[in-house]
C-alpha cells in the first residue's frame, strides 16, 4: 500500500498557482524527499496532505482509502514554522499533543518517558517550555511530532535552524523510523541532506513536478561529464585529446571537462602510460548541481527542459 498518493492536485491563491497538477506516489517504508526552491509549492502541498487547506482539484490519498481526518491521527507533522505552548510544562505539552492524536493515557505516559530519555530531556519534564534553550525546544518539537508513534512522518524543512548535533539526532530518528517500516516524507532545499537520506525524491518547481524517482535514476540521467584528476608528468597534451573539452588546473589537481558523449574510460586509457595517474575521480553530479541545472536561475527558471 502506498503511504501517500497525490493525483493531479492543484491549488491556486488568486492568480498564483501554488501547486499545479501535481501527481506523486510515496511507497510505504521509504524516506521520500520533497525538493524544490522556495516558493515551489512544497509547504502548500504538505498542508493539503494534512488537510489544513483543501485542494482546488485533484485527489489526495493517505494510507490507502483512509479518510483524511482519520488519517491525521496516524501522521506526525512538523511544520516549517515551529512552536509550542510556551507556558505549559514539557510533560503537559506532550500529553496534550499526544491526546489530540488519540493516544490513550497509559501508552502516552510511557511514550513520553521513553522519548524524553532518548533525547535527554528527562530532567526537564516539569519545566515550562519557555525555560528550555532553543536547541532543547527543537528536540522537544521532534518528540512532539513522533510521540503518537505515527505511521507517516511529514516534516516541512526539518533541518532549518538545527545545529549539527540536533541535525544528527533528527536524521537518526528519521532513519530509525524508516527501518521500523514507517514512511518519512520531508521537504527541504538542503540538497546535501537529501542526498544522504532519501530513497526517492520529488523535485518541484513553481508548483509543477520536474522529476520523481530514485536518486540514482536522476543522477544517471545527467551524464558524468567531468573528471577530477591528479597527474604526474607532462600534461600539456591533454587539451589536444578529442575526448577533452577543457582543462582547468588547480595546482596539482585538475578538472577535466569531457566532450559531449565522451566516456571517462577513454580518457583514462589515454592517460595511462603517458603520465602517472595519482588520482582519477569520475564526477557524479551532486543533487545540488542537478537541481541548479534543472531549476536554474534566480527566479527558478529552468536552464534545461522542465520535464525529464
Amino acid at each position, binding site marked *: 500500500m502506498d503511504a501517500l498518493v497525490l493525483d493531479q492536485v492543484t491549488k491556486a491563491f488568486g492568480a498564483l498557482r501554488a501547486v499545479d497538477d501535481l501527481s506523486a506516489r510515496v511507497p510505504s517504508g521509504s524516506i521520500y524527499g520533497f525538493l524544490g526552491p522556495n516558493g515551489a509549492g512544497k509547504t502548500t502541498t504538505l498542508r493539503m496532505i494534512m488537510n*489544513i487547506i483543501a485542494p482546488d482539484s485533484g485527489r489526495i490519498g493517505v494510507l490507502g482509502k483512509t479518510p483524511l481526518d482519520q488519517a491525521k491521527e496516524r501522521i506526525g507533522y512538523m511544520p516549517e514554522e515551529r512552536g*509550542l505552548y510556551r507556558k505549559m510544562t514539557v510533560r503537559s505539552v506532550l500529553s496534550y499533543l499526544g491526546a489530540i492524536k488519540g493516544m490513550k493515557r497509559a501508552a502516552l505516559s510511557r511514550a513520553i518517558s521513553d522519548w524524553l530519555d532518548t533525547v535527554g530531556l528527562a530532567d526537564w519534564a516539569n519545566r515550562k517550555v519557555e525555560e528550555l534553550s532553543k536547541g532543547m525546544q527543537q528536540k522537544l518539537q521532534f518528540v512532539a511530532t513522533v510521540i503518537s508513534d505515527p505511521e507517516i512522518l511529514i516534516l516541512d524543512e526539518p533541518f532549518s535552524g538545527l545545529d549539527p548535533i540536533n541535525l544528527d539526532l533528527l536524521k537518526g530518528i528519521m532513519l530509525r523510523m524508516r527501518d521500523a517500516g514507517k514512511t518519512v516524507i520531508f521537504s527541504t532545499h538542503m540538497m546535501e541532506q537529501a542526498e544522504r537520506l532519501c530513497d526517492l525524491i520529488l523535485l518541484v518547481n513553481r508548483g509543477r513536478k520536474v522529476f520523481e524517482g530514485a536518486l540514482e535514476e536522476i543522477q544517471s540521467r545527467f551524464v558524468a561529464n567531468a573528471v577530477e584528476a591528479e597527474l604526474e608528468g607532462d600534461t600539456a597534451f591533454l587539451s589536444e585529446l578529442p575526448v577533452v573539452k577543457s582543462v582547468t588546473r588547480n595546482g596539482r589537481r585538475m578538472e577535466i571537462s569531457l566532450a559531449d558523449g565522451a566516456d571517462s574510460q577513454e580518457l583514462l586509457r589515454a592517460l595511462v602510460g603517458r603520465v602517472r595517474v595519482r588520482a582519477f575521480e569520475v564526477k557524479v553530479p551532486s543533487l545540488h548541481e542537478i537541481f541548479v541545472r534543472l531549476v536554474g536561475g534566480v527566479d527558478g527558471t529552468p536552464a534545461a527542459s522542465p520535464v525529464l
Partner: protein
Amino acid sequence: MTRIITVAKREYLETVKSKVFILNLVLTPLLVVGGIFLSTRMTQKTMEGPRPVKVIAVTDLTGQAIPELLRLSQEYNKFNPQREILLTLSTEGDASHTQELKDKVQRGELAAFLLISKDALGSGKGKSYCYVKALGMTDMDLYSTVQRMINDAIVTTRFRQKNLPPELYAELHRYVPFEQVDLGAKPQEKRDPLAMLMAPFFFLFLMFTGIIAVNQQIMTSVIEEKNSRVMEVILSAVSPFQLMSGKILGLAGAGLTLVFFWGVTAYGAAAYRGMTAVVTVANLTYFVLYYILGFLLISSILAAIGSVCNTMKEAQSMMMPVMIIFILPMFMWFYIAQHPQAPLSIALSFIPPITPMIMILRIASNPEIPFIQILASFLVLGASVPAVMWASAKVFRTGILMYGKPPSLRELLRWLRYS
C-alpha cells in the same frame, strides 16, 4: 467529539490554573463586598458622624417666624452636639443687606443663606430662596435638616397665630408607619426592600462579569497559539471547528466555575443578612440557561476576532463595538429593574447579545414576567446563537492560518460565503 473534549480540558485547566483567574476569583468578591461595606460606613459617617459647625443666615421676610426658628435650632443642637447648625437670623429685607449675605456665601463665610418670602406664612405662593455656592449644600443631611427646620418653624408659627400651642403640631404631625408585607413571599421569609432593589443588580453583575472575565482568555489563547506557531501542529490533529468548540467549551467550564464560586459566596453573604428570598430555583435555572447562551454567543464572536488578529491590541480594538453593546445593560440596569414591563425594557430583551442580561434583570425584578416573553427570548437566542457560532467558525477556520493585517469587514463577509 473526544477531540473537542481533549481541547476543552486543556483550555479549562490552563485557564483555571492561571494567576489571573485565581486572583479574579478571590479578589472580586472581596472588592465588591469591601466596597459596599466601606461605602455604607462612609455614608453613615456623613449622615451621623461629627461635622464642623455650619453657619447659615436666615432672613425672614414674614417677620414672625424667628422665635420658632430659634427654638427649633436650639433643640436640634441640643440633640446633635456634634453637628451643630448656627442660624443667624434677621428680618432685614433690603437689597444691600441681602446682597451682603449672598457675598458672604460666595466667599465661603456662610454655608448658605435662606430667604423666606413674605407670604410664606399665608398662601405660601411667594418664592423662598436658598442661596448656596455650588458645592456648599451638597451635604444632603444638612440641607434636609434645615429645610425641615424652617418648615416646622413656619407651621408652628401658624399654630401660634391660631392661638394653638406649637407642641400640638408635633403631636398631630406624627406619621403613620407602614410595614411592607409581600403576599407573594412565603410566611417565614422576610423580604428586605434593599435586597429586592439590589438583587437584580447582583444577578446582572454576576452574569456580566462571569462572561467578560473569562472571555478575554479566548482571544489571548487563540492569539498565543497563532504567535507561537503551535497552531499548525494542533491543526494537523484537530479541525478548526473542533479547536474552536473545544476552547469555548473549556472556557465555559471555567466561567461556570467562577460564577458558581461567586454565586455561593454571594448567597452566603445574603443568607447572613437574611436576604435570600430573591434566589429561587426558577431564577437560578433561568440564570444558568441565559448564562450559557450568552456565553456561547460572546465567546464565538471573540474567538473569531482572536483568529484574525495577531496581537492583543488589534483584538481589543476590534472588540470595542461588541463590548459597547454588551455593557449597555450595566448602564440601564436601574431603569429596567424599576420598570421591567416598560416597552423599552421589553424591546431591549430581544437584542441577542444583551438578551440574557436584560432578561435576568427583568426576571429578578419581577417574577411575574409573562412566560411567553421568556419563551420568545429563548427562541431569539436559540436562533441567533447557532447562527453566530456558524459565522464565527467560518471566520475562525480561515483566520487562524493568516498572518498579517487583520481583514476588513468586507473581506470577512467574503470569507463567510466561501467554505
